[in-house]
């Protein structure tokens, strides 16, 4: 049995987040086709953003133009999502793999009484249920779960689902008023954003490529080698704990057990030995490259490609080669 689905869209600076396109891709798998998928967009720019779904082939776009969704915490959209899901009678709600999406999933599930799974990398209908796979333990294991019952909430993992082709019909846009938003949920107020330093590229957790540097760089004055390589690739910059503990770079860049877990398409470890506490944060990356002068460094055991050599020679050459390839 296939189920119809509702994707809860995420708007970032008036545009649809990439995560939303991936969520539509995942929802279309559960529903059998994009025609079984409705998309909810809420906020002042919802109607404009709906235009980005022209020819997406989805069933409809539900638009709620209400500024409370721009200002409020994610919980407010979760309430709207649960109400919309109940009104149009879908069996699955799907959200993207961003912090925003993940935060919504728990409240939608509790409010709408659905079974929930997050960080999902594979999904398939199974009889009356939905079967999912998801990495656990920082990617050191994978679990398959079966979500039963009439209502299922899924948050997908970034980069795990293809964004659907845009060769279908253009969906109708349904403009509806906001659901009843409980007053306490409107209590939190965002007072400011210190955006990730200008030009710093994508955030670590959802970047498609991450370049991380370790103690092999010898000092903060050399860390620019990692940053330039990252810039040439449009990648996010990460670091080992040796680097963040020494204060060469802020703790927010730390990858690992006590830092961030990342699972990009490509992870490049520069001058990082590959201690288990670092590995748990990055082993689930699709392709891992290690650059290290010590051929016996444990990082090579989890790497797909290894370069044994002096990072001070290899990394600048690599940056130059990538710039050259990109320019042609």
């Amino acid at each position, binding site marked *: 049995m296939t189920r119809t689905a509702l994707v809860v869209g995420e708007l970032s600076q008036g545009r649809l987040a990439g995560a939303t396109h991936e969520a539509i891709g995942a929802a279309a798998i559960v529903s059998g086709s994009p025609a079984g998928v409705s998309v909810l967009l809420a906020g002042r720019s919802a109607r404009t953003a709906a235009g980005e779904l022209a020819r997406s082939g989805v069933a409809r776009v539900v638009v709620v133009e209400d500024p409370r969704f721009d200002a409020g915490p994610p919980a407010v959209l979760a309430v709207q999502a649960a109400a919309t899901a109940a009104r149009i009678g879908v069996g699955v709600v799907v959200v993207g793999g961003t912090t925003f999406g993940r935060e919504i999933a728990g*409240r939608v599930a509790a409010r709408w009484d659905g079974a929930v799974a997050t960080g999902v990398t594979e999904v398939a209908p199974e009889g009356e249920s939905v079967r999912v796979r998801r990495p656990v*333990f920082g990617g050191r294991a994978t679990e398959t779960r*079966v979500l039963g019952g009439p209502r299922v909430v899924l948050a997908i993992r970034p980069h795990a689902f293809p964004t659907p082709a845009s060769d279908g019909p253009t969906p109708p846009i349904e403009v509806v008023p906001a659901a009843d938003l409980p007053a306490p949920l409107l209590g939190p107020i965002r007072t400011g954003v210190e955006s990730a330093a200008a030009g710093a590229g994508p955030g670590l957790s959802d970047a498609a490529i991450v370049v991380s540097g370790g103690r092999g760089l010898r000092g903060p004055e050399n860390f620019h080698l990692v940053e330039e390589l990252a810039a040439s690739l449009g990648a996010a910059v990460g670091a080992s704990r040796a680097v963040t503990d020494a204060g060469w770079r802020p703790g927010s860049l730390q990858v690992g057990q006590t830092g961030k877990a990342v699972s990009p398409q490509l992870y490049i470890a520069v001058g990082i030995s590959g201690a288990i506490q670092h590995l748990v944060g990055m082993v689930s990356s699709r392709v891992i*490259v290690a650059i290290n002068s010590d051929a016996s460094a444990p990082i090579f055991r989890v790497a797909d490609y290894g*370069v*044994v050599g002096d990072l001070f020679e290899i990394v600048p050459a*690599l940056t130059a080669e*990538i710039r050259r390839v990109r320019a042609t």
Partner: protein
Amino acid sequence: MEIVVCVKPVPEAETRLRPDAAGTALDPEGVKYVLAGYDESAVEQALLLRESIPGSRVHVVACGPAPRTEEVLRAALALGCDVATWVDVPAASADEPLSAARALASAISPHSPDLVLCGKQAGDNEAGVVPAALGELLGVPDLSYVLDVRWNAGASRFSLKRASEAGLESWTVPAPCVLGLQQAWNDPRTAKLPAILKSRKAPIARVTPPSAAADPASSPRRFELPPPRTGAKMIEYKTADEAATRLVRALREEAKVLP
């Protein structure tokens, strides 16, 4: 102020993962369960807030089976939490985030806390569901990916930072609320021996939630370890430029991760 902090017993990081006989879940045989990761940050944040708000109490709550749940509660008491509640449910319920949230909510709501602190996600199943679900079940707002929480008594609001894709956001949130803690960059404290000894004898309240509350909404089917990586393909080269050309070619043509 009544501060509740939720901690989940999780296998210590160095655990060698193995599927159980049925192949559906982690084999708990010989696994050491600890208070770890984001939950440590949540406890640290709770203790810091208690120090700054006169008349506060930190109440640690954990949901799961014996003996692991009692062990993490004692670890939290040793760190300085004032009272502990053990929500006694089977492992399958504690590991399913929505049933864990329901069981926790039933144990927490009679205490009407001003603040409920969680980790942003548990270190084992990494669901990141419980904080928002608890917010819904307790009827209060929630925010996750939170760090650096302070109490502003004049405004009766918490002010905090939140790490999102947009950057580092600042928020103010009225009490009561649920917050999911991101890693704190100030290192969590470690327990001192006398406190550890004292915590061994501290009373722990045991509650059992209504059974329906703890019914898992999903069931595990398979627990698998990834096939071992076959070892890195080493790039052979004579000059750094050659290493770079070969690596980029492999990444574009073989691995297809670069355009």
